[in-house]
């Protein structure tokens, strides 16, 4: 139920927009995010809930470094 999927904004007027999910273009409400064309947003129930900041691969690599730091790995 709480699944949200990332998609790329191809059009937005700040309130409503169109988001591309691998070729499927969906109308999305943009009312609670501050996002621009080209940004990736997490979309749930037709509503963008957050702007994605990083690619997953990049995030995972950074998390390894952060965890090492947190738990003093060497």
């Amino acid at each position: 139920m709480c699944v949200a999927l990332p998609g790329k904004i191809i059009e937005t007027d700040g309130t409503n927009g169109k988001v591309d999910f691998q070729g499927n273009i969906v109308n999305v409400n943009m009312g609670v995010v501050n996002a621009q064309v080209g940004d990736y947003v997490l979309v749930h129930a037709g509503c963008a809930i957050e702007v994605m900041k990083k690619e997953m691969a990049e995030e995972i690599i950074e998390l390894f470094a952060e965890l090492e730091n947190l738990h003093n790995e060497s």
Partner: protein
Amino acid sequence: MNLNLEKIIKEIKNYAGTNLKIMEVCGTHTASIFKNGIRSFLSPDIKLISGPGCPVCVTPATYIDKAIKLALKPDCILLTFGDMMKVPGFEKSLSEAKADGANIEVMYSPQEVLKKATSNINKTYILACIGFETTIPAYSLLIEELDKNRITNVKFLTALRRVIPALEFICSTDSEIDAFIAPGHVSSILGSEVYGELASKYKKPFAVAGFEAEHILIALYDLLKQKEKCKYEVHNLYPSAVRPEGNITALQHISRYFTPGPAYWRGIGFIEESGLYLKEKYRKYDAGSFDISDESDKLAPKCRCGEVILGKINPDECPMFAKVCTPVKPKGPCMVSTEGTCGIWYRFS
């Protein structure tokens, strides 16, 4: 040696310490754990417990009955997410009611009602509004549109639930859970800092995680390390989608239209402040959500969904599981949804 996934899996597999019970709160995490075979990477000393994170499963049977009653009125049409269709009410599910002639349509987004309502002004559209914080902005954005455009033929039948009071309930009534994987997309709205009070008050580490296998393994590793070092912190391990403070715009938007109140969780009971209800100013949009929760909302005889939702038992410990209760003919709410713990166990285990 630099930390990597191989090392993390090795540590999780070779963990030999005190037995750990880690709760993954969100049903989407439960599904990912099964799909990715993550249980096979766990040391026998680590047990993953599925939590109450499926809003469909905790919606009271009385809510279904009320929704059906409204959908049977000739001038009313009920709009619902597909997940809700098979949830058993006291007499029947929405799906069965639709087959018997009730006016019920499945929606992908609450926004769909705007077009329907303006082109059919003689009909009243009732939105079956269920969900946790992830879904609630979609409803508050809709109310804003309705208000702005003075659309009066849309009403909300709400059973909205807040995650933090439910976690507080689990922490305060069941000390068996040692650590929590916090829900990723609920946290996109709420933020990661919101778990800090629970972590320190109940001495339970929290890791906010995404939904890929790597995210979950990283969260498990973090929780093991926190427990080893007696740390009770919140670590945001899904920073691409979760800010420490959450989505402030969304939180402000929710609080403009909704206010907390007591709510009944199917299989659990009442939890204070765990529901969200339309504020007085917007009560004109309510379809009768205030008298839904009541103690008469009993589960089917022998159904142990309440214990499953609280992580006290695994689904296969219920006598009905996979025998008389299956996804095709669910007896309990946890078997209904694709993110209900029993449904996930049935499909993947």
